[in-house]
């Protein structure tokens, strides 16, 4: 009996915890009282739900989009991309010019900027950052490659810095406008070494206050911030502290918003978003993401997809609208071409290709000699059934899309073998060309992103293209800074992709953010992923 006593005490303590109910859900944010009385107002703390615990969050080292959601407010960049006009606007650089040969970019830096730790920001700091990013020891997973043919950085004077390239690289300004190339305090980087990602220091509107990996990340307003780009509109913003919490399971995101455990939540599942849209207590901020739309790449080197008629039959036989309506509840636009419609350089003429037409699809297959001779529901030719191997990854609703496609194509007499694989395995399968179809999408604001998919030497050349003319267009477009020339080239590239029927576009990616209706001023940068937290405010609670 004696041995049971401590055990029972422990048990009763545990059970006691559940007896006093929580107060009904109220947002944790409290507005600042008007300064009539003497007490200090409690700072407003917003809780912002992210979908994953970011895996490593040093923007110079790691690659996730997640890390940029908080850190875009910790770091400033040399330039910013105005999502409205598509123009680059001054950031830490007040002005810049590009040399005649387009291989040297000179930046004239803003004076009087300091990092959160008091280190002054100057040309030497820019050089330090770019050298850090390109150092092989850092093993950067993204930032290094965004700099393309980077060679070195020259400090011209205290506030002038020049970046030298090995060859012209048109996407450079776009890269420099992203958090991955944000400016970190050289003092902090040297002080913390490999632990820097737990103690990040930038010049941005918020400081990196506390971070417990996979638990929470707290940002606190930088009171000295006076050098924001003109695209920030923070006159009325009130959020003093922003606490990021992580909700990896999609099913838990909307409940967390509804119970008031978070005021803002990223990547709400479409069915929950549709429900929240109808409620007065919540707003859904649907942000289209520029880049390469979600599309299924067709392996043009593997029979029967080496036959353009069969590929076009698949395109005609795909009811994209049905997929977008069923799986995404019409929260995403249907994709018509390789670039999302809000990407700079998008060619609207892609909309004229491959409207859903199962009759046309069947006619193309008949003409190509694929006929169901043995009456098993699957077309065949020379004794070979028309069965395609489709590889899918588990995220982004790909398995559901794969099922719908298989059902749609079954009606045309096309069989599909679906297989879900991990990302590293997908890279291997598609690299070796063991697939007929495999989907992917990638976000990015510069159309040079097409080079990663349709150049014959590209890592994601999952259509297995080997088109010298296309390679040339992609290479020239990456080197040319004349926007009209680039636009013409990208238009040709997009139309070529459609004519040859090398991929089936499905939908443009949309980032469905949910927020309490008391949250105002939530808007996102040109990438569509990164919120300008300095503009966020909370209206008075009734």
């Amino acid at each position: 009996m004696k041995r049971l006593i401590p055990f029972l005490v422990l048990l009763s303590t545990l059970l006691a915890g559940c007896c006093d109910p929580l107060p009904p859900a109220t947002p944790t944010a409290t507005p600042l009282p008007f300064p009539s009385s003497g007490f200090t107002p409690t700072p407003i703390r917003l809780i912002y739900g992210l979908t994953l615990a970011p895996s490593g969050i040093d923007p110079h080292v790691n690659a996730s989009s997640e890390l940029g959601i908080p850190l875009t407010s910790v770091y400033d960049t040399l330039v910013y991309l105005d999502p409205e006009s598509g123009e680059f606007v001054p950031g830490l650089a007040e002005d810049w010019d590009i040399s005649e040969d387009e291989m040297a970019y000179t930046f004239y830096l803003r004076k009087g900027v300091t990092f959160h730790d008091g280190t002054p920001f100057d040309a030497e700091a820019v050089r330090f950052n770019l050298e850090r990013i390109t150092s092989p020891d850092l093993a950067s997973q993204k930032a290094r490659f965004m700099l393309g043919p980077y060679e070195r950085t020259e400090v011209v004077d205290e506030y002038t810095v020049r970046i030298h390239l090995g060859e012209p690289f048109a996407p450079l300004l776009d890269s420099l406008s992203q958090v991955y190339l944000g400016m970190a305090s050289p003092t902090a980087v040297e002080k913390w070494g490999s632990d820097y990602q737990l103690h990040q220091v930038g010049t941005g509107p918020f400081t990196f206050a506390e971070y417990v990996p996979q638990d929470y990340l707290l940002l606190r307003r930088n009171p000295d911030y006076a050098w924001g780009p003109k695209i920030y509109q923070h006159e009325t913003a009130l959020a003093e502290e922003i606490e990021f919490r992580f909700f990896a399971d999609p099913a838990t995101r909307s409940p967390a918003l509804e119970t008031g455990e978070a005021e803002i939540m990223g990547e709400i599942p479409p069915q929950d978003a549709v429900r929240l849209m109808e409620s007065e207590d919540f707003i859904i901020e649907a942000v289209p993401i520029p880049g390469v739309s979600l599309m299924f790449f067709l392996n043009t080197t593997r029979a029967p997809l080496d036959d353009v008629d069969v590929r076009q039959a698949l395109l005609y036989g795909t009811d994209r609208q049905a997929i977008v309506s069923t799986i995404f509840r019409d929260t995403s636009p249907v994709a018509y071409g390789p670039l999302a419609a809000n990407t700079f350089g998008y060619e609207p003429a892609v909309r004229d290709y491959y409207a859903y037409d199962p009759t046309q699809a069947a006619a193309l297959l008949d003409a190509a000699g694929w006929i169901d001779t043995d009456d098993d529901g699957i077309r065949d030719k020379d004794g070979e059934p028309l069965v395609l191997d489709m590889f899918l990854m588990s995220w982004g609703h790909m398995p559901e899309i794969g099922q719908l496609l298989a059902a749609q194509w079954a009606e045309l007499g096309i069989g599909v073998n679906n297989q879900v694989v991990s990302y590293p395995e997908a890279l291997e399968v598609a690299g070796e060309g063991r697939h007929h179809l495999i989907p992917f999408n990638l976000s990015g604001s510069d159309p040079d992103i097409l080079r990663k998919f349709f150049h014959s030497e590209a890592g994601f050349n999952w259509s297995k293209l080997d088109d010298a003319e296309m390679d040339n267009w992609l290479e020239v477009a990456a080197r040319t800074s004349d926007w009209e020339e680039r636009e013409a080239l990208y238009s040709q590239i997009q139309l070529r992709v459609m004519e040859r029927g090398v991929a089936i576009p499905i939908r443009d990616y949309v980032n469905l953010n949910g927020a309490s209706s008391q949250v105002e001023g939530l808007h996102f940068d040109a990438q569509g992923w990164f919120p300008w937290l300095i503009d966020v405010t909370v209206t008075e609670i009734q």
Partner: protein
Amino acid sequence: MIARYIGRRLIQAASVLWLAATLAFVAMKLTPGDPAQALLAASGATETEIAERRTQLGLDDPLPLQYARYLWSLAQGDLGQSWLHGRSVGQMILEQFPATAELAISAIIIGTALGLALGVLAALRRSTWLDTAATALAVIGLSTPTYWSGLLAILLFSLHLRWLPATGEGDPRHLLLPSLVLGCALSGSIARLVRARVVEIMEEPFVQAARARGIPPWRVLLVHVLRPALPTALTVVALQFGFLLGGAVVTESVFARRGLGKLAVEAILWRDLPVVRGVIVLGALVYVLVNLAADLAQAWLNPRLREELA
């Protein structure tokens, strides 16, 4: 004598650790996919740059050399750097371990209490509706996946009743829901075994004798029946620890808690070998230690075993 016993068990433990580390290595090498490519493909790195990274990570070396290096650094207690995070694996594990341990321990307490109560109740009221109900509860606990029961619990206790927060951590309230869910799942098998053992003991002559001596029924139950049944419960709890570590992975994800589970899943998906090795070796170590402790506690509870050891 007991020292020799512990010594023998520690040697066993070392071989379990070696086996776990080796299995992790073999499994990761058999899984298709190249870590360097997974890390860099989306960034637009060229084939040459990816190959350079592969060399940098030592993935170009012959497998026996990779394996030897893998074991050697482990033997020195160096868990290495995560390929994905670029941070020290030991430190990453230290950050996550307390959260998982907290969840596992409270789930064990709840699961054991619930399992004991249900098992004893079912045994005492054998073949009545109580027995059936307790059995049904145990089977439901045993067969319901925690990702599902977790969501149901969130729906009921957080969204409708608003008693407990659905996600996050901090105060004990945050811990209660996930550990209840995991504890309930755990209680099923404990309840089944405890019930069987108690039924068995109730038939024993010494229980009959105790009753005949007029000892009050509660005392018969606590001293004469429950005490010999405890070692059974203890063994199950220790063996269930493996299940618990696995269940914690899922539970952590549903309740948006941090922990080793999340770390492991991410590392496996990205072929981040140093992190996989770290988590697996730690998991094996904890499992071995818990079972060693359970065996020692058994000996302490069971005089016959104690004599055998001595």
